[in-house]
């Protein structure tokens, strides 16, 4: 029984080691990406097979776009708060609510226009094939209406 116990243990240790080893090696690449200074851009480089030079260009564009993006966030937040207050104050459709909704829609349009301009600029920095793939991917997740529905098709 002693030798059987040893063999049983050896088998379990071998199986567990194989699992841990393959899991560790298999997840090395995403763990590396997550450790990067800007994981989302490191992911972009890996996903769209970009060179260091291409990534440097995209990082520049990304950083230049960030202040504008944050300003849009601030404006969207303010608009949402305003609409929320107007909606909480009444149970009727008022002229003010109509104006606020129209302003929200206008702001969304403005935001989508600027986002799209940024995405197109980023895509032009990539090799043509990858740029096309990036455009399709990012547009489906941002500016295309009801992208969740269209992705399921």
């Amino acid at each position, binding site marked *: 029984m002693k030798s059987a116990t040893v063999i049983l243990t050896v088998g379990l240790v*071998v199986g567990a080691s194989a699992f841990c080893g393959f*899991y560790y090696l*298999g997840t090395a690449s995403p763990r590396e990406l997550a450790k990067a200074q800007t994981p989302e851009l490191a992911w*972009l480089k890996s996903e769209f097979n970009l060179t260091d030079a291409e990534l440097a260009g995209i990082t520049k564009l990304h950083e230049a776009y960030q202040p504008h993006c944050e300003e849009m966030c601030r404006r969207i937040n303010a608009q949402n708060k305003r609409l929320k207050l107007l909606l909480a104050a009444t149970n009727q459709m008022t002229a003010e609510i109509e104006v606020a909704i129209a302003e929200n829609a206008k702001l969304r349009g403005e935001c989508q226009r600027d986002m799209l301009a940024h995405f197109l600029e980023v895509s032009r920095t990539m090799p043509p094939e990858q740029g096309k793939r990036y455009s399709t991917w990012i547009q489906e997740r941002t500016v295309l209406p009801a992208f969740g529905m269209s992705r399921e098709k």
Partner: protein
Amino acid sequence: MELERPSENPEPFRTLLREWKVTTPLPPRFAEGVWRRIDRTGVKPSLWDALQHWLSTALPRAAVAVAYVTVLLVAGVAAGYMQARNETVRLKGELGTRYVQSVDPYQKPGL
């Protein structure tokens, strides 16, 4: 006939038993023989006994041991590979979402 009473002091007997060494090796397939005899008595061994018996007789055989370790090795490799693949897909998806959130004000967390 009256049975002889055991001695009141069993210590000398115990000492003798402790000194007794069995030098004769067990005959080949002794355990199997014992189990066969138990089978013949009609007494059903419990599942645990049967498993223990199987482990102690079959597993030490080289072919069975190699097969057992190989199966666990392959299972470990396959499970590790599958788990890593799922985790990679999940982590990459998360990073992709983070990128989208970093460029789309409408998808920023907390908005």
